């Protein structure tokens, strides 16, 4: 080969080597598997929202208080006592001194402001900081009427919750339930509604007729409930915004009150005829009733999956009351529960990954969850009588009611509780009188 070509070849070779060599790592990397951690609430610092005037300062303190309670009640967060804060509120305006917050072991910091605008509206701003990474995670501002501060606090808490856990929030929601009083043989029942934290409570009915099983529509601000006027179960549709009620229908053979479909257009219920109970749907627009199961066994208590394509229900077609899943048109019925005891009231989680239910076994009641294929069955809580699970709209928290046995004078207590799907953090919801049959609303639009 000519010297020129050889020379060129050499140059090219050198250049090629120069590009190839750096890919090799200079030293080996250490790889470690971390498989053990702990489960504890995340310590967070929530500073009072700043304001320039006394009125707004009170609102700012209240907003921080509501956010703090919401987060604490999830069992996933531990708000740090404000007395332990090192950095003062005024200097926070200019930015967090992260070392101060690390010292008190705050992993996240929340602060903000509440200011009255010239037009009378309230402007609420907040920021969420990752203390150890020293980064802002999110920051938003809201405009509203000053009297609406509580809803703003819940909305902010939802944003924070979602940013820190990945879960959709559930604080801006309500719970409708049956408020009860009186001895066991003469219970007076009324419909009650409240924010999920028990605030803003009011009664919806007077108590002169028996009301049962309220349910929330997923799409409108309406609830259905069952009323036994003249011993005939009648389903009412109640609009929360207008206060108007209408009768959905008389259902003389109704054995289980209706639940809404996820798109809000249908209700699903069970009706009995000649001692046999089957699952039916009714289209709310046309009022047409269609039959889904046709079996001599008692089929009842149906609940839609969040995508509307499947239905969970209970049936004793297998000999004992157990849980089944079928397609939304009634096809492909398959059994999913197999343990001893009786299973009832299946409710499909809005997250789609679990079905909650009531189970009676060993002389006790349980609230449990299982996956839609029947695996991973776990009992979350038990008692003399625990019943009627309902999911928060994010599918993470459940509500149910717990009733004590009646004493010799027929007195009993019944209270609504919430519990996390992991089975931990069971909490009572404080209601003015006894409570049962809770139903959780979707996020308020």
């Amino acid at each position: 080969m000519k010297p020129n070509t050889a020379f060129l070849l050499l140059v090219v070779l050198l250049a090629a080597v120069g590009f190839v060599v750096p890919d090799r790592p200079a030293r080996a990397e250490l790889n470690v598997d971390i498989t053990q951690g702990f489960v504890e609430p995340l310590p967070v610092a929530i500073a009072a929202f700043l304001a320039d005037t006394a009125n707004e300062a009170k609102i700012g303190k209240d907003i921080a208080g509501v956010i703090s309670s919401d987060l604490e009640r999830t069992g996933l967060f531990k708000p740090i006592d404000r007395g332990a804060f090192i950095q003062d509120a005024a200097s926070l305006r200019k930015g967090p001194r992260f070392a101060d917050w690390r010292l008190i072991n705050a992993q996240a910091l929340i602060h903000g402001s509440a200011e009255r605008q010239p037009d009378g509206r309230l402007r609420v701003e907040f920021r969420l900081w990752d203390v150890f990474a020293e980064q802002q995670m999110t920051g938003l501002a809201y405009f509203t009427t000053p009297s609406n501060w509580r809803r703003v606090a819940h909305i902010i808490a939802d944003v924070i919750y979602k940013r820190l856990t990945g879960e959709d929030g559930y604080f801006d929601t309500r719970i409708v339930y049956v408020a009860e009083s009186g001895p066991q043989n003469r219970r007076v029942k009324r419909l009650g509604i409240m924010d999920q934290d028990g605030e803003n409570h009011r009664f919806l009915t007077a108590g002169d007729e028996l009301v049962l099983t309220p349910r929330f529509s997923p799409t409108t601000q309406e609830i259905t409930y069952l009323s036994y006027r003249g011993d005939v179960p009648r389903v009412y549709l109640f609009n929360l915004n207008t206060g108007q009620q209408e009768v959905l229908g008389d259902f003389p053979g109704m054995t289980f009150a209706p639940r809404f479909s996820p798109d809000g257009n249908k209700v699903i219920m069970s009706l009995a005829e000649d001692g046999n109970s089957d699952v039916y749907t009714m289209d709310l627009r046309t009022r047409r009733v269609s039959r889904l199961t046709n079996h001599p066994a008692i089929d009842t208590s149906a609940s839609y999956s969040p995508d509307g394509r499947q239905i969970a229900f209970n049936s004793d077609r297998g000999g004992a009351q157990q849980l089944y899943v079928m397609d939304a048109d009634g096809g492909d019925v398959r059994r999913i529960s197999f343990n001893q005891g009786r299973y009832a009231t299946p409710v499909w989680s809005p997250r789609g990954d679990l079905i909650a239910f009531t189970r009676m076994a060993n002389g006790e009641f349980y609230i449990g969850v299982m996956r839609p294929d029947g695996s991973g069955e776990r009992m979350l809580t038990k008692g003399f009588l625990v019943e009627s699970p309902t999911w928060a709209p994010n599918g993470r928290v459940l509500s149910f009611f717990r009733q004590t046995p009646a004493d010799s004078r027929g007195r009993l207590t019944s209270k609504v509780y919430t519990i996390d799907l992991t089975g931990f953090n069971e909490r009572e919801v404080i209601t003015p009188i006894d409570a049962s049959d809770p139903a959780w609303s979707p996020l308020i639009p």
Partner: protein
Amino acid sequence: MRKAVLLSGTLHLTVILLLIVGLPSFVSVPDMAPPIAVELAELEDLAQKPMPKPKPKPEPEKKPEPKPEPEPVKEEAKLPPPAPAPAPEPEPEPEEVAVPEPVPDPPEPEAKPEPVEEAKPLPPKPPRKPDLKAAEKKQEEPPEDRLTSILKNVERLKQQQAAKPAPSDEEEFQAPRPRTSQLEINALARAIQQQMSSCWRVEPGARDAEDLVVEVRVILNRDGSVRGQPLIIDKNRMASDPFYRSAAENARRAILSCQPFQLPIKRYEVWRDMTLKFDPRSMFGG
């Protein structure tokens, strides 16, 4: 002239190739210690172990059972008996409530407050000063025992221990470099696992929580502090999956709050640059 260039080029090439391949060694590299000496080597290894953390670390009861290898330095971990469930809140007095009007007041149309544009992030922070170790974490006994099972099942009334930590030889076998034996790598990995176990917060209720495996790359300074920010490897999933992002941020927070890591300075070159894989699967063992 050409000849000179050719010769120079060839010599350059040879040098570069030698740098890649390495000089042929005429001295035998010391082998790994023969089997009998393994125990001695291990004791020596333990003697080199870093001092326990200056501040009293959260009590050992929280730690899982130690691995089978003899570790005279560590004390046997004991799990406390499951704490009793908290007493339910005292029920409020059922009072007589005056019957309110049956028709509810038409509620004022509370318009949902509109969110405004993102508040602008504050100006960049001043350069971080070297961290003082965070104040002693207040690890009070949790009211509910979350060690027996992170997903509760009241029916089985389990008394099982928490899932045992994975054996330490899960870390990759590195090509044996002279003077860093596999034993020492194992010991380093164990030390890191031990320190991380009290810093890593897991969220078991997340959707498909067992599958949230997070890999993080960390560069450490000689004093065990983190250089820069830990790097989450799977950026795409961070952006698309909010549960994964939350788990990844938990992992990142765990690393940042655990520094400075107590590791032998002699092996700094080994632990300077590491990838930690946070895998909660075994915690769901129950």
